[in-house]
């Protein structure tokens, strides 16, 4: 993936077949030929249009393109016909992206160490907070979308497509995310939060066919399930653990916080603590997680995604807002750090 050329896909209109509300996961639908080629041959020419490998080399799962190739658009709209793009040719900003954020063009992918505002595909540096024993080995090609060196799919396959096999047509996990073999629990917005991000005053719909906010899991989930923060912890485990040591956890031996909590309930005396009805602005800037990804009646919990977006943002450290603008005592901001930490406003 390192040094990989950004792949521009054709605009592919594929409508999402929704699998119902609650924790149902969207299965890809549409004509097979939009994504697959049986022999990578048409009229004597390969069907593949781009990619670092020679075009005559077929891709696994008989695909026309790879992850970024398919989920990159030559336009400026992150959602076209229900089809999500994580990299735009133009106009990708914190106000024009999907819930996971956005990658820059391939030519601008960051290879630095903790210097970038996105996960750099191909970056071979150790992830910040990498825990001893982490599955992530980066290998020779660095960070990839999926598999042994990525976030999506299983943790064993080297090939991205093999790692996410079944994830598009028969999804069993939130956004094809797993921790070991445990699927991450979550309920996805049908529009990947495009509307809420664009216009935070949009009324929030937390379930059903018009669900427009993600509902993340936090704290307690099923025995064979994982929270979204546990997913992040696969690579950034030091930031998620709580084993009581400064070297590897969020609390010290005395139980005091030494790193920001995740998978923790907000104190009930905080404005956003306890059972809290969030609005679009909260969803965009301070989303919460919930026990078993159940919003109704559940107290708010902080997750990794309460502050960060997974793919990238306009801001350092993939934050949803600029950390250096969080100014205690301003008494105005209700997002960012001061969104939850209302006592510090």
């Amino acid at each position, binding site marked *: 993936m390192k040094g990989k050329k950004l792949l521009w896909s054709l605009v592919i209109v594929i409508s999402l077949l929704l699998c119902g509300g609650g924790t149902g996961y969207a*299965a*890809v639908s*549409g004509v097979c*030929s939009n994504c697959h080629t*049986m022999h990578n041959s048409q009229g004597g020419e390969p069907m593949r249009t781009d990619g670092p490998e020679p075009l005559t080399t077929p891709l696994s799962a008989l695909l026309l393109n790879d992850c970024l190739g398919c989920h990159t658009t030559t336009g400026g709209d992150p959602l076209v016909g229900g089809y999500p793009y994580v990299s735009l040719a133009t106009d990708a900003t914190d106000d024009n992206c999907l819930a996971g954020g956005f990658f820059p063009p391939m030519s601008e992918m960051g290879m630095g160490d903790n210097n970038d505002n996105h996960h750099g595909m191909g970056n071979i540096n150790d992830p910040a907070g990498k825990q001893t024993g982490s599955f992530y080995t980066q290998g020779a090609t660095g960070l990839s979308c999926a598999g042994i060196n990525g976030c999506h799919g299983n943790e064993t396959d080297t090939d991205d497509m093999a790692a996410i096999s079944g994830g598009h047509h028969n999804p069993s996990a939130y956004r094809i995310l797993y921790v070991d073999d445990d699927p991450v629990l979550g309920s996805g917005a049908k529009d990947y939060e495009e509307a809420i991000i664009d216009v935070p005053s949009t009324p929030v719909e937390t379930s059903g066919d018009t669900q427009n906010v993600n509902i993340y899991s936090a704290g307690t989930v099923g025995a064979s399930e994982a929270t979204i923060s546990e997913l992040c912890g696969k690579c950034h485990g030091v930031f998620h653990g709580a084993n009581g040591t400064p070297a590897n956890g969020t609390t010290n031996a005395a139980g005091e916080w030494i790193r920001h909590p995740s998978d923790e309930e907000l104190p009930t005396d905080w404005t956003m603590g306890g059972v809290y009805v969030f609005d679009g602005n909260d969803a965009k800037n301070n989303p919460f997680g919930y026990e078993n990804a159940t919003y109704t009646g559940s107290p708010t919990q902080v997750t990794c995604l309460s502050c960060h977006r997974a793919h990238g943002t306009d801001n350092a450290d993939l934050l949803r807002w600029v950390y250096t603008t969080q100014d205690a005592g301003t008494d105005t901001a209700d997002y960012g750090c001061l969104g939850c930490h209302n006592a510090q406003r």
Partner: protein
Amino acid sequence: MKKSLVTLAVLLTAAALIAVFCGPASAKVTGVCSGCHTMHNSQGGDLVATGGPLATLLTNDCVGCHSSSDSSTTYVLGTSTVPVVNFTGGEPTTHLAGGNFYWVADAGGNRDAAGHNVLGISGKDSLSFAPGGFSCGGNACHDSLAIEHATGLSFGSGCQGCHLRPAHHADDSATVIGAEESSTDGYYRFLSGHFTGEGYGVCGIEDSDWQADPSAGDHNEYLGSSGEDKQEPRLTSIYVAFRDLGHTMTAFCCGCHGKFHQEQNTSGEWIRHPSDAGIPATGEYQYAFGSTGGGASGTYDPLVPVARATLTSVTGTVTIGGASPDMVMCLSCHRPHGSPYDDLLRWDYSDMLAGGDENTTGCFACHTKKDTGS
């Protein structure tokens, strides 16, 4: 008297010649010799065979005999039934198992993607050689079936690029045809090999009416072989098909399209659609062909034929999983002569709509979960 004896000898000799003429699948060609042969290509001072004299003293060539403007399936000639592969009476609504050349011919719009371009039926397409194939030079059949080739002249051009050694008078009365090397039964549909495939041919059971009226229990049967390694670069030479794959239809197709049989990368992941690969009783495939799953058999669908590891008789079921599952093969998706659809497919690929819950055949005969999602 002497003249009569000479005439009789010539007639008997002509009758013993192997004709370029497809006959009934389960019976060699019968009928009066003059129905197909002319001794001198002369009658009443006129030529009998247009463009003749023709090889094996025939009155017509492959295309001439196997074309019809009246029937898109078969017609009767004397005591023989002739299969039609090139219908010239308009777009056919029915056709035989191999499809029909109509759509690649001029009358059907000359669509190169709809059929094999064959000499006498359509002009050469723009390709330098067969997709997934190679060129052996000299305008060979591997370059195109639509040209007179300049190599391997012992084989005819056009139709004989695939049907290398037609044997209309061969004894094909056995249920299973072409099972042996150097078979004298003509092989399945006269499909055999040369070069490294010399002495090999396709093994199958020929439906008696060429699937003019197919059903689950009335159809061709094809031999398959799933044991070989499909990983790149296993088949480094595209000349090895029959030798490595046995007397299978897939092996025959590989003679020209061999690159497409390199179907897995070095990690074992599928990079091209499988052929001669067993249908497993796992995942969505266990419900293929209407099976209830768990290794239960499915119902044979003539639109999506499968290959069998062994052939004994025509069966109406599909074995899914187990020690010897039935296999997807090239002809599971393609018709060798032509079809209404691009890439000689049995269905319109662009109509295969994942998640639409509209198709239960085509791709979704096997990929059952991609359609219904349940």
